[in-house]
């Protein structure tokens, strides 16, 4: 949706001086001015240096990029202490590139991607009285992904939760560099299977920007350029919002299941099937695979399909409204959700939460708000920050998306399958694209070298940043409420593990 294209050379605006100290001072100053860090990552540059890229969202919604080369052995003085939102980024820089951080409070590996034994990791411990430790996972009951949770518990109350991931690490970013950069869509679709459309759109938008392929795109030769509308937007927006609708329905079904509220579990679950079947009629895959391709599209939209989709939207809206009323009107459901797993707005901001979880804590973070293609789609927020707020947030977003989809169809859009032709990629260019997936912002950053070959591919799923929100949310809660807190965040293991 938003793509920022900048020259690959290390640059950062607003500061004349260069070097890591100036870059760090600029970062601190930006955060002080209310800029939000969207991502912060690095790649090996010349021998003995690492090129760090920080992407900010300015208060108006524009994206800004600040890059610097640094000596990993020297690194810089950590910022996690003052800005906890940066903890995943600094931990990742340390793990992937060996960047040293002086005074860092917790350089725990994120994914154990260089091997090692995740099970031998020394967790935080508690001692005394009724305190005990509970290990859940990495293998879980039910068919879900692996991830380990170590609880330090006082009686039934959680004192601390340490989340330990990396079991799904597949080396995605390295795999993405092995093939033709224009043919990566099938791989990108599997980074996080429940967010296929958002990831693939982010990839396609970045490639189109690098190749100058999409209509209205200017590749940033000198200064950074924010690109405008691309072809196939309507089809992509349809798929993205259908993915959001389907996953919100799936999440609400899971939440009802974990609460023991059978009607919600079965009805939301049934509606989710209806939603993904609608996606299948558009692009042939229930998970939106094949629907988004760089410069092209796999979506077919003709009068017959439009009519079917309209019927589906009407059905979803009607039935979801009915079960919403039963679900959120049940006193026993409210009793479980209200006040449980609270993340106040200030904590959400400090932790750098994004997407659904941030909006449920009252932060209006939504990349769609800065995109004219999603005009008319309101940014919904809830003030509570508890499990109820996250459930209500999903209900409201679900209906907002259904209305938005209805509005898209009102323009009688046509779409046909077209193979994209992507020309050579611009050399020495970095393209950062951000798409608001159902969980939150999906960030893809692609950089080319002097010959226009892809030299670095950075993927960031919103889960990466929100896991810490879950860990903080369960503090002081009963351990038996962990499953509903977990379900209310609904984070991806593989998206985080890459």
């Amino acid at each position, binding site marked *: 949706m938003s793509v920022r294209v900048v020259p690959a050379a290390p640059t950062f605006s607003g500061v004349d001086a260069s070097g890591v100290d100036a870059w760090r001072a600029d970062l601190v100053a930006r955060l002080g001015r209310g800029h939000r860090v969207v991502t912060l990552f690095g790649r090996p540059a010349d021998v003995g240096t690492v090129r760090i890229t920080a992407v900010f969202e300015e208060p108006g919604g524009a994206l800004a990029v600040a890059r610097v080369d640094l000596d990993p052995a020297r690194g810089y003085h950590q910022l996690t202490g003052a800005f906890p939102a940066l903890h995943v980024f600094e931990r990742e820089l340390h793990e992937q590139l060996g960047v040293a951080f002086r005074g860092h409070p917790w350089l725990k590996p994120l994914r154990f991607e260089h091997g090692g034994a995740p099970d031998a990791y020394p967790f935080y411990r508690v001692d005394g009285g009724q305190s*005990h*430790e*509970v*290990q*859940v996972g990495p293998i879980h*009951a*039910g068919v879900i992904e692996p991830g380990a949770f170590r609880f330090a518990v006082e009686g*039934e109350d959680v004192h601390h939760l340490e989340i330990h991931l990396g079991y799904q690490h597949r080396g995605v970013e390295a795999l993405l560099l092995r093939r033709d950069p224009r043919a990566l869509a099938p791989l990108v679709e599997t980074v996080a299977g429940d967010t296929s459309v958002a990831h693939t759109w982010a990839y396609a938008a970045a490639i189109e920007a690098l190749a100058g392929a999409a209509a209205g795109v200017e590749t940033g030769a000198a200064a950074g350029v924010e690109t405008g509308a691309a072809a196939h937007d309507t089809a992509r927006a349809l798929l993205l919002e259908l993915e959001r609708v389907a996953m919100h329905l799936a999440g609400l079904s899971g939440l*009802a299941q*974990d*609460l*023991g*509220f*059978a*009607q919600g*579990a*079965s*009805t939301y679950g*049934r509606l989710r099937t209806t939603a993904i079947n609608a996606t299948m009629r558009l692009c042939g895959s229930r998970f939106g695979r094949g629907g988004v391709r760089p410069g092209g599209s796999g979506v077919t939209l003709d009068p017959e399909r439009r009519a079917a989709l309209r019927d589906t939207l009407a059905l979803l809206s009607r039935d979801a409204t009915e079960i919403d009323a039963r679900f959120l009107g*049940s006193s*026993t*459901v409210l*009793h*479980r959700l209200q006040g*449980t797993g609270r993340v106040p707005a200030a904590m959400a901001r400090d932790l750098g939460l994004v997407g659904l979880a941030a909006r449920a804590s009252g932060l209006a973070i939504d990349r769609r708000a800065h995109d004219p293609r999603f005009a008319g789609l309101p940014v919904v927020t809830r003030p509570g920050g508890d499990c109820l707020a996250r459930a209500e947030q999903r209900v409201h977003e679900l209906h907002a998306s259904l209305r938005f989809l209805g509005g898209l169809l009102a323009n009688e859009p046509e779409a046909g399958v077209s193979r994209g032709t992507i020309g050579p990629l611009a050399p020495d260019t970095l393209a950062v694209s951000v798409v608001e997936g159902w969980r939150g912002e999906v960030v893809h950053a692609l950089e080319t070298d002097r010959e226009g070959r892809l030299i670095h591919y950075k993927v960031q799923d919103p889960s990466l940043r929100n896991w810490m929100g879950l860990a903080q949310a369960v503090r002081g809660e*009963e*351990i*038996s*409420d*962990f*499953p509903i807190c977990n379900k209310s965040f609904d984070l991806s293991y593989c998206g985080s593990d890459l």
Partner: protein
Amino acid sequence: MTAAAVLAQAVLLGGLAPVLPGVVTRTKSWWAGRRGAPVLQPAYDLVKLMRKRAVYSATTTALFRVAPWTVLGATVVASLVVPLAGPALVSFPGDVVFFAYAWGLARAAMMLGALDTGSPFEGMAASREATFSTLLEPALFLLAGGVGLVGDVDTLGAMVQVRGHDATGWLVWALSVVTLTVLVQVEAARLPVDDPTTHLELTMVHEGMILDHSGPDLAALQYAAGLKLATGLALLAALFVPVGLPPWAAGLATAAGCLALAVGLGTVESLTARLRMRAVPAYVLVALFAAGAAVLASAWHGNGGAL
């Protein structure tokens, strides 16, 4: 006690044990708009488990192997004093104490078996079971005292036949229904206290304690759970069966009552979410207060309107 009575008891209670959980599940499916598993699915599962081999963790001892069969044995013994069709198979003054502690023995065996695994999930589940039953046991005794006083009876079989001859009598009867309903929900590990369908180890009570059991051992525990549900519902149903019916009619009425109550249980489970763990003791206190009120009412009644 005739052979026919023994047979009737065995067929009714023993037969209802694997059926009632299926009826509850089927009711929940119906409310959820699904077709659901066959009513006899729990019975099929028992057959399947009996044909499997048990697997034992290296950390467990003989206690873990003995526990399931102790649970089953104690639950069967407890069911003998429950009247289904006319008089109970075994009946003696104060048999309600025997009944309570036979269930207590089953619970103790299950908790020890759970603790024997050394798993934190089983330990937490056993701890929760202990907390809830500590509150529930006095409720059963207070209720027996209240009903015994108002009806001047001392066996379980006679207690369930106590009906009101006046306002106090009916009040005690109504309080018995409330107490036994909560008792069944807690003892049989049903919603809103426990969720038998959950796969979430951190929230389990009864399911948590049987996580490590397998094969015939698990079958014994599952059957005992079904029998406990059948026994509890039979006691509750007996409160609604008219007094003085011929044994065959009373037996049929009790069985029909059990099935109806299982449907009722499933309906409650379909329309409510599970309680927060911290709120469960408060829910169990409902039983304790209802039973306490029954004692006070019958004491007041016995003293001719003065306490």
